[in-house]
């Protein structure tokens, strides 16, 4: 039990740092609110270990803390709904055969972006949907990259953790 708390703590802290590094450069020229989502890599690793509950916990904590620390609480609502949905999507997709973390990353990123767009539509109205095509394409790219990174990390620590 204590081991798990330590592990989750380390993952959450690392995810926070990743989020901070990300916030230093901005990809907003592609579409507003577009992120690399690097912090999701930790959650993907946890799902890779089969620990879905842990992934949810780490991601929720990470989103809560990072939006309070690095951006306004206003973005909390956006990020939290999108984050929970995308973690669920990653977990769901991981059950399928032949899916590695790259695939989970893409699926998670796609779901995250779409859910964020839905929340944005509630606030800004119908016109936000014009961003959907470019958001989905960037989800493939960013989600793939994040999945690739988490795959690398996963392979290295697989033997050492469980």
């Amino acid at each position, binding site marked *: 039990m204590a081991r798990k708390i330590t592990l989750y703590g380390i993952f959450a802290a690392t995810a926070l740092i990743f989020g901070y590094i990300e916030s230093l450069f901005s990809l907003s020229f592609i579409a507003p609110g577009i992120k690399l989502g690097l912090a999701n890599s930790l959650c993907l690793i946890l799902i890779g270990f089969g620990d879905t509950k842990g992934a949810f916990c780490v991601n929720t904590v990470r989103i809560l803390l990072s939006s309070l620390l690095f951006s306004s609480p206003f973005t909390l609502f956006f990020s939290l709904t999108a984050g929970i949905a995308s973690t669920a999507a990653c977990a769901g*997709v991981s059950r399928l055969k032949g*899916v590695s973390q790259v*695939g989970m990353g893409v699926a998670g990123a796609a779901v995250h972006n779409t859910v964020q767009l839905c929340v944005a539509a509630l606030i800004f109205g119908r016109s936000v949907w014009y961003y959907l095509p470019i958001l989905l394409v960037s989800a493939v790219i960013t989600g793939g990259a994040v999945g690739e990174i988490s795959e690398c990390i996963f392979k290295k620590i697989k033997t050492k953790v469980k």
Partner: protein
Amino acid sequence: MLKLSKKGDLIILITVLAAAVASCAVFFIPQKSGGTVVITQNDRIVYKNSVYVNKTVELGDNTVLIKDGKVKMQSAGCKNQICVRHKAISRKGESIICLPNKVIAEIR
């Protein structure tokens, strides 16, 4: 580049890309049509009705034809005839203006 070592990954990738292409359909939804035709002459409103009420509005020199949700300047006595040559309008915000005769037909 991405190592697509597993088949499932490829399926997800293709699905999301297909969704991206499909969602481009949002660009083809036509802008809001319908609305109210407001014709003003010398800054006075002379006609105001739904664009779906067929009517021929005659204002001295200008004749505005409203038919099947479209508004057109059928004829005008002005020299440049720009208003007559203007394509029929049907969407909110569009307007046909006859400057010499100070007639504006717009859809609000």
